[in-house]
């Protein structure tokens, strides 16, 4: 009897990129649910627009690059990029900016470098950074979280979202429903010589644990991130290092001068902290690849986020921190190669 031959190993576990990406999307569900509750239904629109744009851009890019499109479209990686970008931007973002950001993310962030696995930068953050520097006003206008003041309900949030999403002029009567995020208003307040105590006392800024409203989104992201860790898709090094890099300086600074620096708890549950630590910084393609490298990489991101939040010109620094550390990855990879069995450390 004759047989076909094939190289060893003859069995594999059958893990696949689509399955990994699906798990990531699944872990983002709690974030989406909480954000819709707290900030209105904008996220759903953003996700829809970003996903469609991402798929179209990916298909076009593959076509231009003369690569087979089906396996890549099916792997779900571009959807993760789209959903991460959509979850990072304000739900009030006009749809055409979402399209623009996603297109930049996929075409410039991913395919300009050779597609899946080749991009040195986190594609979602490329798109986010381009939007943030080009359209700072639109990008920093967030809805006032539901429940922060009694003047508006979820219905108003929804109507506001729709109007803003279609790019229409927002009724001046709704001015009270939009505003800067907690991190933003604290920085602005400090610039206007308010004291930290005064700012915190305003109530609409800091809630039970962190930034009012955003604390719950961060909790959801933390839950999703822990799920990914339990599934072995995210390793502990990057999230732990990001949080350590952000919270330790925050703790020290806050202890030295509570009037000038936000406390670590507020940092941990404000802005994009948890989403960034567990979902954005952990993008394996653009992160450092050894365990030790991941620690340095994450710590660098955390520290940069704290620096940007504290002294920078932008409300939240995740995109820039991640992109900056992406640049450092080849260096980290070079100097954090683990010791090989049977060899002395060199």
């Amino acid at each position, binding site marked *: 009897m004759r047989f076909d031959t094939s*190289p060893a190993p003859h069995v594999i576990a059958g893990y696949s990129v689509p399955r990994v990406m699906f798990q990531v999307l699944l872990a983002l569900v709690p974030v989406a649910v909480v954000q819709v509750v707290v900030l209105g239904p904008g996220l759903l629109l953003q996700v829809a627009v970003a996903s469609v744009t991402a798929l179209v851009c990916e298909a076009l890019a593959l076509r231009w690059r003369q690569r087979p499109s089906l396996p890549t479209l099916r792997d779900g990686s571009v959807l993760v990029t789209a959903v991460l970008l959509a979850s990072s931007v304000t739900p009030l973002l006009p749809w055409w900016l979402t399209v623009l950001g996603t297109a930049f993310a996929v075409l410039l962030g991913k395919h300009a470098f050779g597609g899946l696995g080749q991009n040195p930068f986190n594609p979602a953050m490329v798109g986010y950074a381009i939007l943030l520097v080009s359209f700072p006003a639109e990008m920093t206008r967030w809805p006032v979280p539901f429940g922060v003041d009694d003047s508006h309900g979820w219905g108003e949030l929804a109507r506001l979202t729709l109007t803003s999403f279609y790019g229409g002029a927002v009724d001046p009567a709704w001015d009270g429903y939009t505003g800067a995020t907690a991190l933003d208003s604290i920085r602005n307040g400090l610039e206007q010589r308010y004291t930290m105590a005064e700012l915190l006392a305003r109530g609409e800024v800091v809630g039970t644990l962190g930034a009012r409203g955003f604390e719950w989104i961060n909790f959801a992201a933390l839950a999703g991130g822990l799920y990914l860790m339990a599934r072995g898709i995210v390793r502990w090094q990057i999230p732990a290092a990001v949080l350590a890099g952000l919270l330790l300086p925050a703790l020290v600074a806050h202890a030295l001068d509570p009037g000038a620096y936000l406390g670590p708890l507020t940092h941990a549950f404000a802005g994009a902290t948890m989403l960034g630590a567990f979902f954005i910084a952990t993008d394996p393609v653009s992160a450092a690849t050894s365990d030790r490298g991941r620690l340095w990489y994450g710590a660098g991101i955390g520290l940069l986020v704290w620096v940007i939040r504290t002294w920078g010109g932008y409300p939240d620094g995740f995109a820039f921190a991640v992109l900056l550390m992406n640049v450092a990855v080849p260096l980290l990879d070079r100097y954090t190669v683990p010791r090989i069995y049977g060899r002395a450390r060199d």
Partner: protein
Amino acid sequence: MTTRNEFPSGLVLDAHKQPVAAEPILDVAPPARLRFALDQGSGVVLEPAVAVGDVVAIGSVIARPSDDFGAVLHASASGRVIAIESHDATNDDGGPCIVVENDGRDTPDPALPRGPIDYTALDPATLVDRLREAGIAGLGGAGFPTATKLATARARSARRLLLNGAECEPWICCDDALMRAEADDVVLGGRVLMRALEAESCVIAIEDDKPAAIDALRAAAQSAADTITVEIVPAVYPQGAERQLVTAVFGVEVPARGLPADVGVTCQNVATAAAVARWARSGVPLVTRVVTVTGSGVSRPLNVRARFGTPLATLVEAAGGYRGEPLRLIAGGNMTGRALATDEVGLTKSINTLFVATHQDLAARLAAVEVACIRCGNCADVCPAGLLPQEIHRTALARDADGAVRFGVWDCIDCGCCDYVCPSQIPLALRFREAREWLRERDRAAARAAVARTRHERRERRLQEAVAAEQRAFDVARQQARGESAPTDPGTAT
């Protein structure tokens, strides 16, 4: 050298072993015709020591190695050599083989010693030579001659013997069955090997998922408990890889590019030890081995003892024949085994398992679609050599030789763990084999270039010297000619 209690990571795989290992080992009746491959799996092609028409008996030497890296091969049945095929037509691997027609009489070779060998009376060096003549080779799958390994270990004064009963690869259970059924032989073999090595201690390492084998060996080793001990190691693939086992048992790492002997250890498979014991008890060289015949593609998976040269098809028949639609015939386990092109080849010393795989076993591999590496690091998590396979892959793909070597392409033990967990379904182990082949080719080319450069430079120098010598001779001749004709005015004459 650094110490570490465990090798890094590895895989916990579904073993698929227990029911088969508990069953008795079935003796396979000798076939009418035996095919002895001249490459018994160690990569050395032996020189035939017989001619067509020669009469052979059990234990007659039929082929010898030309160096120390092959083991002497003996006939496993009596009969006549009917063919020596330079290229075995049934074998896509292209190996030559000796075909023996079995006369069914099982006559032993008269030159063999009768009865047991008093190994305690032999001096250790002689004992090593006798083991070499007995054709003992590593039965764990490498087929490397035991005597050569022992000689190396003696030269480096490696005084600790490690008997490898880990048997970490899924589906393989021939060692498990052997340890249960012939524990006394394993211990006896350990004693003989200790004598040959002048070893101080002997550790038999067994994975913790084989309690019956552990019990059997503990009982058998009781009388020698001071020197022979049974050590339990966790059931993790590839626990049975030599270096990894040395680390698990002794807590030291075998240096890269070094041997276990460099840390004072000699590793032998338990099946090899049992084979040594058989020889010591009977004086008959190595002519049989235990093979696991298993996989979803055989009717009744079991362990068999068969003579070398027995066609693999006969072994499958002993296991109830093929079942379903067998897609691959794998010599060895499903992680590292070699897929054979035909079942007509004869059993060799290095085939410890016949794994007949059906779609059920191979589904994920057959359906695999390779996509780009996403640097997830799953491979690095499981690599027992502590490598970053994703980086080797990247550098090998870019044909960056220095990078691939720096990231340890030569330290890869080809266990396949990285393949197993790769979500991009990249055949990493294969890529690394190809990279090593490419590096070897590159080194060969570099060596050739170096020789060519030297020869060319020498030639150029020689030719220049010849021209210069001619010029000098010409100058001298001219000088002389002038000296005779115009001695007073050498400067103006041209």
